[in-house]
């Protein structure tokens, strides 16, 4: 176990969370500005709705942060295979100006790559050589409120425009050719705890984006903005004004008793049920879009305050849930709550993947799957929102669901999971999902504290247990059976995300700098390269000039405090 992880994670309540932000001091360019290194490639193509819809079959480009609207992170090209990946070599390294967490999934449009850094820089570079076209740096407002780092997970692209959510809670539209700002809109008030780190998604002229802030007493949402001018089209609040108390569920979705004192909660609710606007429920990662049924499917984060539940009686809908809403109007369709009245911050973060799997009777149906901090992959019927199955536990579970105490109660998984925000990938032919897991033993302690006005509000603390080992595990889960097909243990907890390809390869990065390739069927390690800093971002793949490339950011990560870097590494066969 690395003392580095002990020290960082031991402060979970204070610093792993409470880093607000400021503008980085030593920057040569003015904020809100774009510098141009060379004229944009003539190959840059305006991305049409049809191209976005067919991205799953497009081996040339990588047009969505998770590959396609279904979030499968499955690349259709097969030039790189499990037979030849051992020969993979670096093609180039692109170094950014920002030495801080990198969580970006680069977008590639006909040989032009768009990537983002912490503090909301955007770069456009040549995806075959790494030469820079332009560099944009967002001008941050005076107040930035982030729990878990100043990172950014990438842009969305459509019709010649790029869209980025910023840590000061803005949505910015850039001209993809020049990097100049087209419009900018304030999504919510950062002084109340709102910020953005997710990659938005663009569909039918709408930019869809969720929000951070579940650690600050916000009211979570998914919003749709007009892609042309940034006007707000609709808002779906993840916390309904009435009815958030739900059904007073005793158990979690897997049927385990959560030891709730329902009587005490009901008494509390009768006294005060007006807390919907501080109940939390952020939406941390890119929603999936079901084009056939015009449905947006996403998962919702934890209630506020994370640990102190008595102040927020009831199921706290729709926190810790998978939710489906209508794409055109943002109206509710269904939900499935994984952890009612969560007091462990085991919220639903990793993005939903839309795919097919066998239902309980063996029939192949449309499903929505999610890898949970709880350590299970959930398989949900996409039409009804009913749980079909949940997988075997991917990491150790102990003492679920012991209640937090003043002194601290030990439970596995720790509050980072399981699967944190790291996107999974699937191999649709194998019916396997691949999940990046953390094992971080923690104690959960609770403090009765009032709303602190836009400051970090955990209602207690998560403390790492320094004497217990931490590690990670990449796990392949069979979606039809819920059984683990293979697993690969890593020396540090995993955070970042997975890429799967039609060449029977799975790519995953580690905090110690290793970027590895595995056989998708049996998990044999086939190749690795050390990038010199934490590989804690999801990889992407694309083709230029008939050559397949794999790109991944190696900038380390704030949450697990892995070694920081500033670069995107790109690999290809020699």
């Amino acid at each position, binding site marked *: 176990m690395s003392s580095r992880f*002990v020290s960082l994670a*031991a402060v979970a309540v204070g610093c792993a969370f*409470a880093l607000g*932000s400021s503008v980085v001091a030593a920057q040569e360019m003015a904020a809100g500005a774009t510098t141009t290194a060379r004229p944009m490639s003539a190959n840059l193509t305006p991305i049409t709705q049809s191209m976005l819809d067919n991205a799953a079959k497009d081996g040339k480009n990588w047009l969505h942060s998770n590959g396609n609207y279904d979030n499968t992170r499955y690349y259709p090209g097969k030039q790189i295979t499990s037979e030849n990946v051992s020969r993979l070599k670096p093609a180039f390294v692109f170094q950014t100006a920002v030495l801080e967490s990198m969580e970006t999934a680069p977008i590639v449009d006909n040989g032009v790559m768009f990537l983002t850094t912490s503090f909301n820089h955007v770069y456009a570079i040549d995806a075959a050589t790494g030469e820079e076209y332009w560099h944009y740096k967002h001008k941050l407002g005076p107040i930035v409120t982030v729990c878990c780092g100043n990172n950014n997970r990438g842009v969305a692209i459509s019709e010649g425009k790029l869209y980025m959510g910023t840590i000061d809670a803005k949505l910015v539209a850039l001209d993809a050719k020049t990097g100049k700002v087209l419009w900018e809109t304030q999504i919510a008030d950062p002084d109340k705890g709102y910020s953005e780190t997710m990659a938005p998604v663009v569909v039918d002229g709408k930019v869809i984006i969720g929000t951070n802030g579940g650690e600050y007493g916000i009211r979570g949402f998914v919003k749709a903005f007009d892609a042309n001018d940034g006007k707000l089209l609709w808002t779906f609040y993840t916390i309904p004004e009435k009815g958030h108390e739900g059904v007073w569920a005793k158990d979690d979705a897997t049927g385990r008793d959560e030891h709730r004192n329902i009587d005490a909660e009901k008494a509390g609710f009768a006294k005060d049920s007006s807390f919907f606007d501080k109940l939390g429920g952020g939406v941390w990662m890119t929603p999936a879009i079901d084009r056939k049924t015009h449905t947006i499917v996403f998962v919702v984060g934890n209630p506020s305050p994370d640990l102190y539940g008595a102040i927020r009686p009831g199921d706290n809908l729709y926190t810790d849930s998978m939710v489906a809403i209508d794409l055109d109007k943002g109206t509710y369709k269904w939900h499935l709550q994984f952890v009612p009245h969560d007091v462990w911050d085991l919220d639903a973060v990793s993005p939903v993947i839309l795919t097919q799997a066998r239902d309980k009777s063996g029939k192949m149906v449309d499903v929505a799957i999610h890898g949970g901090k709880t350590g299970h992959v959930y398989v949900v019927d996409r039409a009804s929102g009913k749980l079909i199955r949940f997988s075997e536990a991917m990491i150790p579970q102990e003492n679920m669901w012991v209640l937090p105490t003043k002194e601290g109660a030990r439970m596995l998984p720790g509050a980072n999971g399981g699967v944190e925000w790291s996107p999974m990938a699937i191999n649709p032919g194998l019916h396997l999902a691949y999940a990046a897991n953390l094992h971080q033993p923690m104690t959960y302690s609770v403090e009765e504290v009032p709303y602190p006005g836009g*400051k*970090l509000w955990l209602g207690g603390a998560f403390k790492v247990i320094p004497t217990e080992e931490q590690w990670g595990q990449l796990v392949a889960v069979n979606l039809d059976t819920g059984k683990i097909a293979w697993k690969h243990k890593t020396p540090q907890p995993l955070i970042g995300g997975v890429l799967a390809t039609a060449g029977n390869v799975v790519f995953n990065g580690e905090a110690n700098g290793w970027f590895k390739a595995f056989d998708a069927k049996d998990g044999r390690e086939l190749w690795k390269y050390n990038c010199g800093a934490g590989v804690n971002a999801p990889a992407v793949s694309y083709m230029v000039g008939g050559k397949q490339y794999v790109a991944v950011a190696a900038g380390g990560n704030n949450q697990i405090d892995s070694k*920081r870097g500033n670069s995107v590494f790109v690999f290809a066969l020699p």
Partner: protein
Amino acid sequence: MTRSAFTALGALALAASALAQHQPDPAQVAAGREKSAICAACHGPEGNSQDPQYPILAGQSWRYIYNQLKDFREGRRSDPQMSPMAAGLSQEDMIALGNYYEAQKPERIKFQFDSAKVEAGRKVADAALCPMCHLGGFVGQNEIPREAGQWPQYVKKQLSDFHAKRRTNDAGNMTSYTANLSDQDIEDLSQYIGNLGP
């Protein structure tokens, strides 16, 4: 009280502070200077308080000052002198005052430190993980205050108030972190922190 070993702690802390350095906005600093005239009566010239019961504001993180003023105004923090002071401040006032004080140079206090207490306090700080949020040297960042060189008497009062839950405007984080500190620990820690000044 438990001790934990973190060999990389210092390096991590310094790295984080380099990245998080904030440059006060000159326009805000000028506006804040005007508004700060009344504050000098207690907090001293340019925020270098000469009285141990009033905290030094010079060099303090603007976001921390902004949050405290907002909390005094909205009742989340209470002090018989500060609460009325903050009552009439607007958000612009608070941002300006924060920037002004952040831009001022803190001076070393005239205080007789007890070297045994200072050394004991250093051990308390390491074991209680203070530098993880307050950073190495207690220079602070964003909403986490700079404490280096602060009046020990003031630091002691705040730590005791957090410990006893008389002060709760940080959502209990400091209450958690002071939970296992004895009165002697707090005394030692206050001296250690005060001695970190320029």
